[in-house]
């Protein structure tokens, strides 16, 4: 039997504390990541019930959604945002939970700092009150987003009561052409599957194109699993994974490392593993992707056109986006550019983005182009490599780390009607500000758009 297991089956089984007769499994959680937005009501519930966290050392907290990306030395100006961040500080103090507060260089977007610190490890179960927790699956972990009641449940019991999902394999073979990135793969996958296509499944990304990706690139893909409906996305452990994890602050060292990595190397689907669904793509056929609508599935290649509005969802989307069917994607002009978010704010993203600038400047019609590193450590590394100077001299703003304009809970927002090329993961109505219009793209595509003032096919520059 053992040789038919998927990666998901293996990690799930090794965390099953108890299987109930009604089909629910009590699943043990190794790592609990916490941020300020979805935790206050959970901590309050804990206090009201007179409970303490079951395992403090499993928790790592940081404030990322509300923090300003401009000068922070004076604290947070917006009193409501400040109260939420203060509430997290106070809860972490009260319950003795490890936190990277706003002024700590290790602070950042929770999905960037987990892997960066080695707090997210292969084979772990990882949860956070945030749907993009799927990101951490890139390390061969089972990582998924939960609601606030579940946050409280994990705080109180270290477990969740869950029903196992089905297995989906997403196979990407072939080689990515120059100028096409892991962001384009995942956007194409979502375009193919639809936003509910993987609902009820855990997705495993496999194939030569995935093996060839860095862990950063893999995180971009797993991050957006939820945009296809999958609560979790996973990638098998290989040498790339182990090299990434080695030496990180929370990772095991010495003899413990040897023991851990021997186990981690078993974390891949068996050759005969059974998947309930398989999706196949050839990376060599892919082109840079741009979303044109208000759902990530509304996506096309950069050399394509805005499609016909032949159903009610498309009509609503095109009306909201202010676009006409038949418009070439490259003819769409933009007002703002956002490079950041847990999808694309890691050092590799910033290197690729900066690499495209080559002494050019942001186009005159672009009101704001901003780069928001995913963490204080990413920011520091980028500055050591001189990337900040490249961005700044081209006219980009270089900001402090956080979620920023991915969802605009802080001051970074689109004005009504403004159009943005964004490296984030959601183009929903109002996501970046009421009335704002979001086009999801890769970091290099965002830079291309910034330099030209409209979308351009970056393959022409990178061949």
């Amino acid at each position, binding site marked *: 039997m053992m040789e038919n297991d998927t990666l998901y089956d293996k990690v799930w089984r090794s965390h099953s504390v108890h299987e109930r007769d009604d089909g629910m499994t009590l699943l043990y959680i190794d790592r609990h990541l916490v941020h300020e937005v979805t935790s206050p009501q959970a901590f309050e519930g804990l206090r009201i019930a007179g409970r303490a966290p079951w395992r403090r050392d499993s928790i790592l907290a940081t404030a990322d959604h509300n923090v300003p990306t401009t000068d922070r030395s004076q604290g947070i100006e917006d009193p409501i945002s400040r109260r939420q961040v203060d509430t997290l500080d106070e809860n972490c103090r009260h319950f003795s939970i490890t936190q990277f507060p706003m002024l700590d260089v290790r602070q950042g977007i929770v999905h960037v700092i987990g892997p960066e610190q080695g707090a997210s490890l292969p084979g772990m179960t990882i949860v956070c009150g945030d749907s993009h927790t799927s990101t951490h699956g890139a390390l061969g972990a089972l990582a998924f987003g939960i*609601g606030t009641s579940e946050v409280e449940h994990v705080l109180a019991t270290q477990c969740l009561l869950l029903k196992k999902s089905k297995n989906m394999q997403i196979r990407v073979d072939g080689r990515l052409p120059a100028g096409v990135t892991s962001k384009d793969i995942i956007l194409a996958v979502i375009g193919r599957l639809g936003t509910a296509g993987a609902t009820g499944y855990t997705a495993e990304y496999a194939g030569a194109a995935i093996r060839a990706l860095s862990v950063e690139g893999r995180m971009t893909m797993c991050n957006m699993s939820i945009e296809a409906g999958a609560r979790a996305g996973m990638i098998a452990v290989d040498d790339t994974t182990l090299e990434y994890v080695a030496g990180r602050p929370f990772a095991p060292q010495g003899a413990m490392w040897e023991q*851990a990595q021997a186990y981690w190397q078993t974390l891949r689907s068996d050759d005969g593993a059974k998947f309930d669904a398989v999706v196949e793509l050839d990376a060599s056929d892919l082109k840079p992707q741009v979303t044109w609508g208000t*759902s990530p599935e509304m996506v096309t290649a950069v050399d394509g056109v805005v499609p016909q509005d032949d159903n009610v969802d498309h009509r609503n989307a095109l009306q909201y986006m202010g676009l006409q069917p038949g418009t070439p994607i490259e003819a769409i002009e933009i007002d703002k550019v956002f490079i950041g978010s847990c999808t694309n704010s890691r050092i590799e993203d910033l290197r690729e983005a900066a690499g495209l600038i080559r002494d050019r400047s942001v186009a005159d019609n672009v009101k704001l182009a901003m780069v928001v590193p995913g963490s204080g450590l990413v920011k520091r590394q980028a500055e050591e490599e001189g990337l900040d100077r490249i961005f700044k001299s081209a006219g980009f703003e270089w900001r402090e780390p956080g979620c920023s304009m991915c969802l605009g809970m802080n001051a970074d927002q689109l004005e009504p009607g403004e159009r943005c090329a964004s490296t984030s993961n959601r183009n929903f109505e109002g996501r970046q500000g009421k009335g704002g219009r979001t086009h999801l793209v890769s970091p290099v595509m965002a830079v291309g758009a910034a330099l030209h003032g409209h979308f351009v096919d970056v393959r022409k520059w990178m061949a």
Partner: protein
Amino acid sequence: MRPFTRLETTLLPLDRSNVDTDAIIPQQYLKSVKRTGFGKYLFDNWRYLDPGTLDTDPGQRRTDPDFVLNQDTYAGAEVLLVRDNFGCGSSREHAVWSLLDHGFRVVIASSFADIFCSNSYKNGLLPITLQAAEVDDLFDQVEQDPAYVCTVDLEKQLVQDQNDRVFSFEISEFHKHCLLNGYDEIDITLQHEDKIRAYEDRMKQACPWLFP
């Protein structure tokens, strides 16, 4: 949690697919540290023409008369009727809190996003998945007659209308049991406290790096 057993009510039709949780409750309201008071911000971007924050008084904002939630015709409905993939996107439980706070107890859709569903169960909101054709049918009924009434019976897993048309729905035994009784899942889990401790003892041996 407030138990859910049986309900007789009108339905509010929201003819949209892929309604994401950002649309159910926008980001600026997630700054609240409470679980209550979100009802007035439900579908905020569709409902109000003026922007709002936690600080602004919704009574002072212009509403969009074309949006179904603003129409008296459907006032008081405790069932929200929608299409595919309701509640996709962000895991924010505020979406469920705002639906409940507004007065909805049931959402009927042809499909739901996973996290939205589990958040619903934990708060006593019943998500009912029906066939797309059945959902179409309900939309037709409600649009012809806004006073159209249905009974939702969780025990029997049935939605039944005034003309005795019956739609049955699936729900896991576990969630049905919790909803009917208003059980708190933390209490259920803590009944297995010894098993959790035994698991931890085993794993400290097998994977010591997980217990630094």
